[in-house]
């Protein structure tokens, strides 16, 4: 029988959520172990588009988003690198008068949460953005939004957690996890672990853990489709989105334009970009950004992401098992949120509560009201 290692908190998943939770918990002085079956930040956390954006999020996400944005502001102090985070502003484009009206309505709502947006249209818009195609007639600018490099940011959170004292175990898939009525019992790579708390941050694969505790949610894998151009002279000044969705674009300091939209395909484990989607977005991107007509596309990619029916994540405590926290299902919008979610999870562990409203992210919200289940007190 191998030696049993005991921790205050065990975390399943080394994505940005798991790693930032590990960092916050280790800094709070807790003993933390994190299990990652591959490499930290190598899945959706590391291959996503890289938008750091509050604008466009639904009202229920804004308090969490605004809190997460504060973590981004302190990124170098927190993880030791700037992660190529640029406060470029996020410009959400309108293609019709109806879109403009929608943007105005959204701006009104966002202001109530302290998020200030500037609406630009007509001649002012054209003068300010001569590099945008005529398909865009106006937009809403959120100056405090930006973009960053997920390939750097996500692994850096795991490295920072390690430096803060967390045991971050890569290439270590969880073979078994149970609750014995007092503690969580885990085994991985032939070693046994126990923990008082368990955080399920296993991303698109989180249901495999959730269902062991009766907490499975309806979640589907999605495969966002993205591609990048060769380096071009700087011309895209903001992180760009479109009202109603469909395409998003940013340009990094090196000059490459990163553009996403639509879906690739996959088998739940691995994702591949779709050339049909890529070509559709190539065409749409040329209409939106005519400068791209002269550019070369050098790489396309996708990743596996968990998507819930209402596109909101699952964040918070299980109603069946004590000291089990879930944080997954970010539905393509988790990059900005994740560092804030890590702090929220740490608060839940340390003080049992958080000031950030999580009701909309309850794990049981998809369970029909009649089917309430008794809590499990022992396995």
């Amino acid at each position, binding site marked *: 029988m191998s030696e049993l290692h005991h921790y205050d908190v065990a975390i399943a998943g080394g994505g940005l959520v798991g790693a930032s939770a590990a960092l916050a918990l280790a800094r709070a002085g807790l003993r933390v172990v994190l299990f990652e079956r591959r*490499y930290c930040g*190598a899945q959706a956390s*590391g291959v996503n588009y890289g938008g750091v*954006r509050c604008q*466009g999020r639904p009202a229920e996400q804004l308090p969490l988003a605004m809190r997460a944005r504060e973590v981004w502001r302190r990124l170098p102090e927190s993880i030791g690198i700037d992660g190529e985070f640029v406060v470029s502003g996020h410009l*959400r484009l309108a293609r019709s008068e109806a879109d403009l009206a929608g943007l105005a309505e959204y701006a009104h709502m966002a202001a109530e949460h302290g998020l200030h947006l500037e609406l630009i249209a007509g001649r002012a818009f054209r003068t300010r953005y001569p590099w945008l195609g005529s398909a865009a007639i106006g937009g809403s600018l959120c100056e405090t939004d930006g973009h960053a490099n997920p*390939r*750097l940011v996500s*692994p850096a959170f795991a*490295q920072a957690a390690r430096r803060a004292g967390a045991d971050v175990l890569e290439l270590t898939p969880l073979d078994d996890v149970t609750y014995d009525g007092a503690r969580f019992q885990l085994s991985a790579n032939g070693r046994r672990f126990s923990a008082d708390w368990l955080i399920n941050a296993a991303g698109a694969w989180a249901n495999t853990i959730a269902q062991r505790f009766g907490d499975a949610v309806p979640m589907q894998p*999605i495969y*966002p489709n993205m591609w990048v*151009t*060769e380096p071009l002279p700087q011309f895209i000044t903001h992180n760009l*989105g*479109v009202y*109603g*969705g*469909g*395409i*998003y674009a940013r340009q990094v300091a*090196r000059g490459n334009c990163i553009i*996403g*939209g*639509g*879906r690739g395909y996959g088998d739940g484990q691995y994702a*591949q*970009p*779709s*050339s*049909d*989607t*890529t*070509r*559709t*977005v*190539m*065409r*749409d*991107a*040329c209409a939106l950004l005519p400068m*791209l*007509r*002269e*550019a*070369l*596309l*050098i*790489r*396309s*990619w996708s990743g596996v992401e968990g998507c819930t029916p209402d596109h909101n994540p699952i964040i918070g405590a299980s109603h069946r098992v004590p000291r089990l926290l879930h944080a997954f299902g970010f539905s*393509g*919008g988790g990059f900005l949120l994740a560092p804030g979610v890590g702090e929220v999870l740490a608060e839940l562990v340390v003080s049992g509560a958080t000031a950030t409203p999580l009701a909309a992210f309850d794990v049981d919200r998809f369970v029909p009201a009649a089917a309430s289940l008794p809590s499990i007190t022992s396995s």
Partner: protein
Amino acid sequence: MTDAARIVIVGAGPAGVRAAETLVAAGLRPLVLDEQSRCGGQIYRQPAAGAGFERSKRTLYGFEAAKAHALHSTMEALLPHIGYQADTLVWDCEARNGQGGRLVALHDAREQNVPFSHLILATGATDRVLPIPGWTLPGVYTLGGAQTALKTQGCAIGSQIVFAGTGPLLYLVAYQYAKAGARVAAVLDTSPLAAQARALPKLARQPATLAKGVYYVGWLQAHGVRIERNVTLERVHGERSVTSLAWRRADAGNGDEAIVETIRCDALALGFGLRPETQLADIAGCRFRFDDTTQCWLPERDAAGRSSIAGIYLAGDGAGIAGADAAELAGRRAALAVLEDLQCEATPDAHHEETASLERAMKRIAVFRSGLEAAFPPPFGRAASWPDDTIVCRCEQIDAGTLRRCVRAGEAKEINRLKALTRVGMGRCQGRMCGEAALALIADETDCSMQTVGRLRAQAPVKPIPLAAALGDDALAAIPEHARDE
């Protein structure tokens, strides 16, 4: 059953042409897609149509003129019986095991979808590139690039040229340049003569090929061309372009400046053997294995050329470097495998004798090839000596020091991880030029084998594609509502 077959061959080099020939002989009409303007692949590459110069096949291909001629004429005769589209870059492949798939190609500045039931990948090879300080200066070419300039455009890369690196191509290209009237300043081979001597028994299995190699060396020596073996390439010098190459004998002590010799030149052809172009097989999802002999990752295949995906076949140097003669055999064999698989059990033994003899011949060549690999080992072990300021990834300007610091910090000991953290292999070439160097560098830093540090995964497109190519495509659907993220 064969009525529904839609057989596509990618590549019109020795493997692709022989595969097409075999299929046509069986009454089928394959579609051949080739990136080049004219057939022949790299080895039997033809001058561009209307190139403005005339060189005989004898001049262009030397001892291989007859083979080149045979391949070009075969293709000529096949044209009425096949679909053939030149100037076509196949940049993506979506395959379903046993159910065919679809290629995505760029032709005439337009995008194309090419469905297939069976696919023969005969995608060929490129130079294996390893860095030395200064290798990104203008005037430094790959060996294959230098040869292509001569074959296709009838021009030399410089007026005083050093050929450096290793592999049989080193002597061949130097010979071709000298014959064409260029001034060859020196041939510097990083492999020791002893390795070539040790490999002789295996090389002697193909006496004619061995004799040609010996001839090139003898000819160069007889014409006063300096040949040095067992050298270490130190640095390419030059401000705006190459002006000289510094080297020393590998068995001399490190860091002893006195023994470093400098050769003046205005061009340098640099190559360390060939590497297979496996990206399409990779993107299609074929399984790969690490090949110890050639120290690289190759798509798995059986003796006939079947990949791990039913309906996808691999032939020629694109599946593993074996040379043009083996490629012709492998092309035939893969085409016969398509016929076997198409006919299921109807006539299983129809080609039995031919397949057996092809496989025997391919095996003989494989022994010879293992001798070549031993005679001309690429100096992967030199990675430790690359100074920190040596550019490894030229597209993204990533130097050896950046990669080492990332590995030493414990952040990456696997190649895709190193790519994610440092951008190595993320540029226009997508690691086709720098991937192996990066692999060698991590292997050296971590004291692991190149196999252990992993495989740089290919991602579409195989080569850069212009965005404008999608503009004329009316068949593109809009992004569906459910997939509209912001």
